[in-house]
């Protein structure tokens, strides 16, 4: 799995998208190949085509087996129609130079740690090759070519030196054009010469990426703004305070998807060593193509759409914006609460820092003011506003002493502004069936509900409410009630933490799977037990309105829950003209031995028949005059008779 790299998933098992990344197409029942090898545990999943990636989410184990390839790395794609038992496939060829290098996004590979690389890389002849962790594509390519190439004395072709080449040890490689081995001196000359060239080139580069060859690192880091050579331990320029490029990548950088966006825009990253190997005749070891097998159709649509996305090259357009967003986030992060090893924060010290801060404040204020001018400008600024709100949210969340209401209000407002991920449309399911569309819709709904919407509805929301809330969040391309219903019906099938529940009356609600009906009813009944008593101790029952106030459900849900509890015999109702009040069911528990209580008759009727007649005989009762009616009535008579 070199070409496919692991990805993050949302709670609903959809890929976490980068900023500016949009969903385009989804297809289910696909399997993956790398090179010509079928990947055994990646044979049944959903394929998402986004503007930046092709993501595979495994059905069986989405958390471990979900991977993606980055579209910027793709050179060509090719469509293979199915034949007999072979499913139609799309073959994706990677640019040779990038193939193995750019894709792995696992934290370990980000660090440039060599353990995941082939052994050959640890024995590279040139110093510091493994330190090339964070080269930008342009720079690394340029630097490496100059570092590693030698000119064939026969045909003048500029050849690349294999990464595992060791002077005096490895056999001298032949020229890739004419096949003639050069004299050893040519190679040595090239090594000596290009080493120096590489350094100067790197220094001359004004890209903000790193300067990574060891020689430069020893001397210090050149500030990209003022070119002052800082000590390599510095993170900010000592003169102007500009952030210095760093050489090592920190895995924590990739926690926020904003950072993903940035990294994405800088694609491809190189792991120096593996880049070398793929550039130097090791291609036969590393596959440069992947295949996607479509077991359930949709192949043609996917192919067409992928072609379209590749032509559009959205990632390039969004480069500038991604940078901007990153900046916003940096400012709004609270420096105090950030762990030290987190991404470096813009320094807020010195005149320079103050100036910049004021400048930014002013810009934000301008944004706020101008965006409120009219709706049109708000629309234009919508994305900025959202990112600003997110920034505020981060700051609020990390600073103590902020009232909860403020936090909640902020969260809700950002919810109301937009969905966290691009809206799911029918077109996304492309050539596929409605089933795919509903599946995706269900996943997005789950994300939407998970984001606090269901909580604010008390954990149970009617389909009407969900329909209204979700469509409001969508804003455009609204879904129909039927779509919503179909999407909600597949919640459980997809293993999402929600379920649809239909009450006896036909009212349909969406609720968390965890909260099964028994638990809900139990908590309801427990609450009724305490709530039905008036302060005076008199039982007064509860109404649906009371339940609403306590549980936050809508009234319809309250009535249904109460009636469900009643159907289970836990509650009983008192229906009067004023409405229905509910009480804990005392009727079922009460037993009333009226014969004993009122008439002091201990025995049951059957026993009475079996007993000696004397027991109920007046004579006996005359012996023990009691309060029982029978005796009161009969005793005087007997006395009268016997006297």
């Amino acid at each position: 799995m070199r070409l496919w790299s692991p990805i993050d998933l949302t709670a609903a098992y959809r890929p976490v998208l980068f900023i500016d990344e949009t969903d385009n197409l989804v297809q289910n029942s696909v399997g993956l190949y790398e090179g010509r090898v079928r990947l055994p545990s990646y044979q049944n999943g959903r394929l998402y085509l986004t503007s930046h990636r092709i993501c595979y989410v495994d059905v069986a184990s989405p958390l471990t087996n979900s991977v993606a390839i980055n579209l910027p790395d793709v050179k060509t794609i090719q469509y293979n129609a199915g034949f007999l038992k072979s499913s139609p496939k799309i073959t994706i060829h990677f640019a040779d130079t990038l193939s193995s290098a750019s894709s792995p996004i696992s934290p370990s590979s980000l660090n440039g740690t060599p353990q995941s690389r082939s052994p050959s890389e640890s024995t590279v002849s040139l110093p510091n090759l493994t330190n090339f962790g964070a080269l930008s594509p342009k720079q690394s390519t340029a630097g490496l070519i100059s570092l590693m190439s030698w000119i064939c004395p026969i045909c003048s072709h500029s050849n690349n030196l294999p990464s595992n080449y060791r002077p005096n040890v490895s056999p001298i490689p032949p020229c890739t054009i004419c096949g003639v081995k050069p004299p050893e001196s040519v190679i040595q000359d090239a090594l000596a010469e290009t080493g120096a060239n590489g350094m100067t080139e790197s220094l001359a580069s004004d890209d903000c990426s790193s300067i990574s060859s060891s020689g430069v690192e020893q001397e210090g880091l050149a500030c990209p703004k003022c070119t002052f050579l800082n000590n390599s331990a510095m993170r900010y320029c000592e003169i102007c305070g500009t952030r210095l490029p760093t050489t090592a990548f920190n895995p924590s950088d990739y926690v926020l998807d904003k950072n993903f966006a940035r990294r994405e825009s800088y694609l491809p990253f190189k792991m120096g060593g593996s880049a070398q190997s793929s550039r130097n005749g090791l291609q036969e070891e590393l596959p440069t193509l992947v295949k996607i097998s479509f077991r359930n159709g949709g192949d043609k649509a996917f192919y067409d759409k992928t072609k379209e996305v590749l032509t559009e090259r959205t990632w390039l357009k969004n480069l500038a914006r991604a940078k901007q967003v990153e900046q916003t986030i940096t400012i709004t992060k609270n420096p105090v609460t950030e762990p030290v090893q987190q991404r470096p924060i813009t320094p807020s010290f010195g005149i320079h820092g103050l100036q910049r801060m004021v400048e930014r404040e002013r810009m934000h204020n301008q944004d706020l003011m101008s965006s409120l001018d009219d709706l049109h400008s708000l629309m234009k600024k919508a994305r900025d506003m959202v990112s600003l709100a997110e920034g505020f949210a981060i700051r609020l969340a990390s600073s103590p002493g902020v009232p909860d209401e403020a936090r909640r209000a902020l969260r809700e407002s950002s919810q109301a502004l937009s969905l966290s991920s691009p809206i799911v449309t029918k077109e996304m399911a492309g050539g596929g069936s409605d089933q795919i569309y509903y599946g995706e819709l269900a996943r997005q709904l789950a994300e939407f509900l998970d984001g606090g919407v269901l909580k604010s509805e008390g954990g149970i929301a009617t389909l009407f409410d969900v329909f209204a809330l979700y469509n409001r969040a969508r804003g455009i391309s609204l879904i129909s009630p039927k779509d919503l219903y179909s999407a909600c019906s597949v919640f459980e099938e997809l293993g999402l933490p929600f379920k649809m529940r239909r009450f006896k009356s036909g009212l349909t609600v969406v609720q968390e799977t965890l909260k099964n009906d028994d638990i809900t009813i139990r908590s309801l009944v427990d609450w009724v037990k305490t709530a039905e008593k008036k302060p005076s101790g008199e039982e007064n029952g509860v109404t649906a309105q009371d339940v609403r106030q306590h549980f936050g459900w809508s009234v319809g849900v309250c009535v249904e829950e109460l009636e469900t509890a009643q159907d289970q015999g836990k509650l009983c109702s008192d229906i009067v003209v004023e409405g229905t009040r509910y009480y804990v069911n005392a009727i079922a528990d009460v037993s009333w031995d009226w014969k004993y209580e009122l008439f002091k008759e201990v025995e049951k009727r059957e026993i009475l028949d079996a007993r000696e007649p004397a027991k109920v005989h007046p004579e006996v009762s005359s012996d023990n005059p009691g309060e029982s009616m029978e005796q009161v009535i009969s005793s005087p008579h007997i006395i009268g008779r016997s006297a």
Partner: protein
Amino acid sequence: MSTLPSPTSTSSRSTSFPFPSIYSFPPFFTRQPNSQTWTSQLSLWNSLILAYCRYNRIWRIDLNTAIEWDLFNNRDINRSLKLETSKEVLDSMVKKGDAEWVSGSGSHVSKNTSAIIYWRRPEEWANIIADWIDSTGQKNTILTLYEIAEGDLSLSQDFRGIDPTILRKALDVLIRRGQAQIMKSADGEEAGVKFFGSQ
């Protein structure tokens, strides 16, 4: 005989029937939709009606008037049992044998509004009457039905003022046991009953 309690003293109890606590539970007056709860509710109503009738020595209930009684109306909590619910209650009592519908013979009352309440079953009444006959030494004498219900000797008895229909059923039990025999007058009317000693 002057010590005998007068019927009026008996009827004066009706105001002081000690209602059970469930009588003050508002849902008790609403027909519960849950079948299990309803079964339980029915049996409570059954007990309440039997107790109330026995306490007040009521033999028959005509729902058209009885629905106004405090038995079906708790004015303290302002709840009352609906007529149809009370009919259901009586229906279930009839099924259990604790009551019996009286067909509205001759009267204009619609079917199933009037019922005999057996706060003692005819078999029990038969035992009690037999015991009474035994203890008062009236064996082998002939008593009219009126004498049993209203005679001097039965003044303090539980079956004092017993409904003729119930009495007749109790006597039927005794006849089946061979302890009594109905004597008919010349014109074929039931004139009296003769009791035999229980051997």
